[in-house]
């Protein structure tokens, strides 16, 4: 059950910088009425962030160059996407994703 002070400082600091951006908008937005265009802008956030997170999982960062392709993840994504379309169920998507990746690593 060791807990070094180094690790403890990191955990508390990381907790704070995670907590503040999550909570600030909930404190401020209550006070003001956002204009329609801002609300429309924000309605695109989930679509764009999830796209960016997904596409990034397909890429490998390269120093001083365009990113390369992560073929393992690309390959595992295909059955995962098909599962999403067929089942529309998050649980199945994750299960098939994990199994696909395990199979790819097992045979590759």
């Amino acid at each position, binding site marked *: 059950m060791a*807990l070094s002070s180094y690790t403890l400082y990191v*955990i*508390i600091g990381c907790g704070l910088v995670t907590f503040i951006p999550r909570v600030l908008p909930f404190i401020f*937005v209550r006070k003001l009425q956002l204009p329609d265009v801002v609300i429309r802008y924000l*309605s695109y956030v989930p679509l764009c962030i999830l796209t*960016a*997170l997904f*596409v990034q999982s397909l890429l490998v960062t390269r120093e001083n160059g365009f990113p390369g392709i992560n073929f393992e993840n690309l390959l595992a994504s295909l059955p995962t996407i098909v599962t999403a379309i067929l089942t*529309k169920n998050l649980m199945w998507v994750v299960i098939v994703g994990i199994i*696909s990746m395990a199979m790819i690593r097992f045979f590759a």
Partner: protein
Amino acid sequence: MEKENELSFYDGVKACLPTVLGYAGIGIAAGVVGKASHLSLLEVALLAIIVYAGAAQFIISGLLLLQSPISAIIFTTFLINSRHFLMSMAEAPHFKKYSLWNNIGIGALLTDETFGVSMNQIGNKKPVSAKWMHGINVTAYLAWIVACIVGAFIGNWLPNPEQFGLDFALSAMFIGLLYLQVVSDKSKKMSTSLFVMLLVALFLIVFMRVMSPELAILTATLLGCLMGVILEKWR
């Protein structure tokens, strides 16, 4: 009238359940990785309880193993999690009528997944309530903590979790949430959504050439949202 029809805490728990298995997979992986990075069980648990952020916990474990400077680890975490600011901005207007403490509670436990689940509901023009949101958040939070601790135990005797594809759970979750977002958001035309997605992908690839992956995600998202609004006005 409105009070009677309000979604309950339990409705939120039910709405969150389909994601719990995803959490379990990623949380176990995060616990295993933490253990592999020589963190103690207590340290893995504290990471889950205090930081509570999937992608960040993997990276923090990695950086702790490298004995990186505290300031560098905290700044990296800030960059990775600053996307939550945007999510909170999008989520907060829907909970304006609730008390400050309710709002702080909702914000404190906001994650990619609980955001995805609730925005699906909002995009479908279905009702939401603070209690319902707490139900989602608390379920996810507890599932995450338990999964991380289980993962730390497993980590003691399973040296290589990647072999079992556990690290792909996070990407798989993003795929599922993204698909549900595209097909269920009735406030957007499908063609507009797909075009915006294509643009975000292109922006991301270009930005990753010149900035850190975390910044590239944020910038591509900010520009993508702008393109979405412009496309709507122009069509």
